[in-house]
């Protein structure tokens, strides 16, 4: 079989690999590093050099994983899916009971050289396991019935509840969004979709009252009315908005951002990294990053639609949704459109678990792209 007049055997490594994907991810990496340097080198920063160098280490490791993933046939991974899913669930259980407590949540397993966050890798495992079972569902016709959905729901709720328990509302919600996107993609019956939405609306007050912690409720309050408590809970939200807005059109310049350098911004190197960028590089910089992300999604969708099989397509859709929802919630929160939730911005925020997971996911997409011509 040939496409565009070329024979499969003539295609070398460089033309099979998706260079657009690599270029876009790399661009975001570089922007991320420049920005992280500024965020970690303020006048009062501590451990400055270590954080920045750590990130470079994570990036290097991330790209290694990316290329390893690219060259592994994802159909081979398909056979291991159940195993890694179960291992990951056990890791979550372990964390819930023996994990390191940081900022009021138990999220980590200390591996000494690295603090492993099982909820982060769970996002990928969930994508894989759902993709594996959803290939048998038929997107033609009316969509999945309640019976079709039962098993996927179980696979989704187990890690969701374990993550909620840590408590890590942000990641739990992210699992829901990623899983939901995949189910939606494969098609759900309209009647069930409506029922779920209604059920969700009813459940919301119940969750509000019983499932959420005080600090989580506060975040929502302050989102609705941030000025009610400007020094307390609304502080982050206001400071972030001031940071973004004060960047104006061209920004204040590299390392010149008063909001970030003088530490008005909390969590500058992780959750609020985009505010640092917006303050120092202004509207121009903010839009540039946003556009790069949009291009990345477009490339991903295109790769998905040209995948050689359903499993590949579903993986790409899952990983893209992972990337999209992180970006959506993080930037939405930073620019004051969404409440403050602890979700990092992929490829830009500091963090080992996040960086490695993202790069592994991008590697999976690359793997699908690599095999798109091998029909």
């Amino acid at each position, binding site marked *: 079989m040939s496409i565009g007049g070329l024979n499969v055997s003539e295609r070398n490594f460089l033309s099979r690999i998706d260079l657009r994907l690599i270029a876009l991810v790399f661009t975001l990496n570089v922007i991320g590093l420049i920005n992280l340097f500024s965020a970690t*080198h*303020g*006048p*009062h920063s*501590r451990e400055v050099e270590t954080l920045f160098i750590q990130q470079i280490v994570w990036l290097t490791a991330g790209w290694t994983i990316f290329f390893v993933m690219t060259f592994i046939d994802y*159909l081979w991974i*398909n056979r291991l899916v159940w195993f890694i899913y179960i291992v990951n669930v056990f890791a979550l259980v372990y964390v819930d009971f023996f994990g390191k407590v940081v900022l009021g949540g138990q999220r980590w397993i200390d591996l000494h050289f690295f603090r492993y966050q099982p909820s982060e890798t769970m996002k990928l495992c969930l994508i894989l396991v759902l993709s594996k079972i959803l*290939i048998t569902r*038929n*997107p*033609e016709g009316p969509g999945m019935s309640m019976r079709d959905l039962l098993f996927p729901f179980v696979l989704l709720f187990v890690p969701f509840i374990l993550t909620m328990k840590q408590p890590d509302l942000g990641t739990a919600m992210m699992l829901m969004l990623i899983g939901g996107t995949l189910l939606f*993609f494969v*098609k759900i019956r309209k009647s069930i979709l409506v029922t779920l939405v209604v059920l969700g609306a009813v459940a919301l007050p119940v969750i509000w009252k019983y499932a959420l912690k005080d600090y989580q409720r506060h975040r929502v309050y302050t989102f609705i009315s941030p000025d009610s408590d*400007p*020094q307390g809970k609304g502080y982050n939200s*206001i400071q972030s*908005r*001031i*940071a*973004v*807005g*004060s*960047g*104006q*059109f061209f920004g204040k310049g590299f*390392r*010149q951002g*008063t909001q970030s*350098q*003088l*530490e*008005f911004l909390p969590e500058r190197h992780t959750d609020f990294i985009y505010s640092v960028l*917006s*303050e120092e590089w*202004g*509207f121009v910089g*903010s*839009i540039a990053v*946003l*556009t790069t992300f*949009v291009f990345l999604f*477009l490339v991903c*969708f295109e790769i*998905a*639609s040209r*995948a*050689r*099989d*359903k*499993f*590949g*397509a579903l993986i790409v*859709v899952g990983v*893209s949704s992972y990337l999209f929802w992180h970006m*959506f919630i993080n930037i*939405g929160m930073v*620019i*004051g*459109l969404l409440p403050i939730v602890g979700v990092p911005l992929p490829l830009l925020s500091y963090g080992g678990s996040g960086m490695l997971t993202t790069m592994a996911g991008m590697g999976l997409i690359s793997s699908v792209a690599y095999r798109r011509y091998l*029909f």
Partner: protein
Amino acid sequence: MRTQYISNPEEARDFLNRYRPFYIFVTVTAAVFCLRLMWLQIINGRELRQYSEKNRVKQTKIMAPRGLIVDRDGKALVENLPGFEAIISPQYIEDLKTLSENVAPIIGLEPAKLTEKIIRSKKLNGPFSMIRLKDNLTREEVFRLKRIRLDYPGLEIRESIIRYYPLREDGAQLFGYVGEISKKEIEKLNKKNAPDLSFEQGDIIGKSGLEEHLEKKIRGEDGVSFVQVDAHGRQTVTEIPNIYGEQIKDIEPIHGNSAMLTIDRDVQLAAYESMVKMNRIGAVVAMKSNGEILAWLNSPSFDPNIFTTDVSTKVMGKLSTDPFKPFRNKVIQDHFWPGSTFKPFVALSALQEKVITDKTIVSTPGQLWFGNRAFHDHNKNGFGSLDIYGALEKSSNVFFYKMGIALGVDKMYNYISLMGLGQRTGIEMDREAPGRLPSSEWKKARLGEEWQPGENLTMAIGQGYVTATPLQMAVAYNTIGTEGKVVKPFIVKKVTDHEGKILFERFPAEVRDITLPQPNGFKIDRANFKIVKEAMRRVANGSSGTARHWKVPGVEMAGKTGTAQVMSFSADQIYQSCAARPIQMRHHGWFVAWAPADKPEITVAVLAQHSCHGNTGAAPIVRDIIEAYYKKYHPEIIKEALKKNPNARGAATPDNNKPGGSVGGDD
């Protein structure tokens, strides 16, 4: 097969029409974000920029005052004084050149240097890091800077705290000094103190001595002050509504904990006064018999107060090239030949080993031939027949050569190590030297050579491989005085927080009683201690004792003088007058003693470097220190004794410098 099924491309096409909502959602999101960014950054940008600039709260560090260091009576040894410092925040500088031209001369700096300093810091630490231009401003400087401050945004005069050392040169190596942390130190200290403490640029830390050793305990916790400032860094009353609602409250610094030492300021001052009066180089340590250090000083010394301002390179250069090393804490960091002060240890070994008894008479000619070499005494004609009392009183070399031959190195090693020589005393100070007490095994392992019989002779008079720190000598002599009790000397009595709560307290501790058998199977009987104690009492009180000329009225001291060569001399140089040599070639003099002779309260070790003799060089200082101690704690004894005999201090000065009077190695 299943894998064949999932890799069916036709199936993948089923999804093709499912992507549309995704494209739409991404596009809508991007559009909404884009609009929001425009709203914030372009439409509201100016207002928000104003918020970020005009309504800025500046955080500045309020340095916590370091804890005081006081003596055993609570009198200040190290304290804090208020002062002023000049600071500049680079981000507010409008015209660097004119600023440098006008500010630099006031603080005594080249304008070009100031410009360079600011540019370098900006490059290194970013524009928001404040730069300390000068500490410890004079009133004149404060006045002149205040007058021009408004013309140069970013320039500030802040109150600061200056560490003050009222004793100045006295005990400077013990108390140490403070200075601004260096980049290397930030890294090192942050690694060492990881979770509990963190240091940053601009911090003042202890650089040596107790200031360094007690850093963690006395540094306190810095506070933060939040000041609302305008775009020029000046404190303002805002016209624009305050986005923070109200002023954020300052975090007050927590005063560092105070340390109370075992040092007695009066004894310390007397010791220093005596050293200065005699113009001596060397080390002094005075200890209570339970191990509490009373005085500790080294000479020459430096004034630690110079480090609180910028030290001039000239002063620094002079101090660091001084051949007598003013920064060394010689009391524990340097070890020396003990010379004749080693003889009491050999005497104890010989008595315990039954080489002699207190009745044994030994003939001591002017020299002793051993092998094919003559070993000299410092008295050309010898001392005739001596028992152990006479031998120590007159400090006969030949007597102890004979003891050395009879005992051998390893017997001496086993007994003398009981008294702590060759081991660190364990005092809570950094960089203590262990000194050296040789054994044949040590020589074999270290130098790969057999122990030579001749070396037993040199060892027996405290030369050759033997070395000890002044503190080790004090502890070992204290062991003789207390008849077998080895104590662990200490200097920090307690640490209290700013409310007076005791956080840490140390009590005297006896390490071992060597009248009981020790792990190496050796002990020294109380009766033998009594013999040596009596002999050492005679050193200071007997008719021919080497230290008889220096007395504390009403109190008997017991001790031993010693002289340590600084180098070997050829035969014709041996009898040359020590004082005729250049200073760096003169012998070190030792005197180590305790009082009262029968039941010691205080033990003092003085090493007077290049003073030629232990008696004239070191004994007067020991006397002055013990006298100061008695004046303070038992004034009635001294008063009464002086009433009876006004010359009770024994102020006579012997002529020790006549040619032939002294042989290198002894008094």
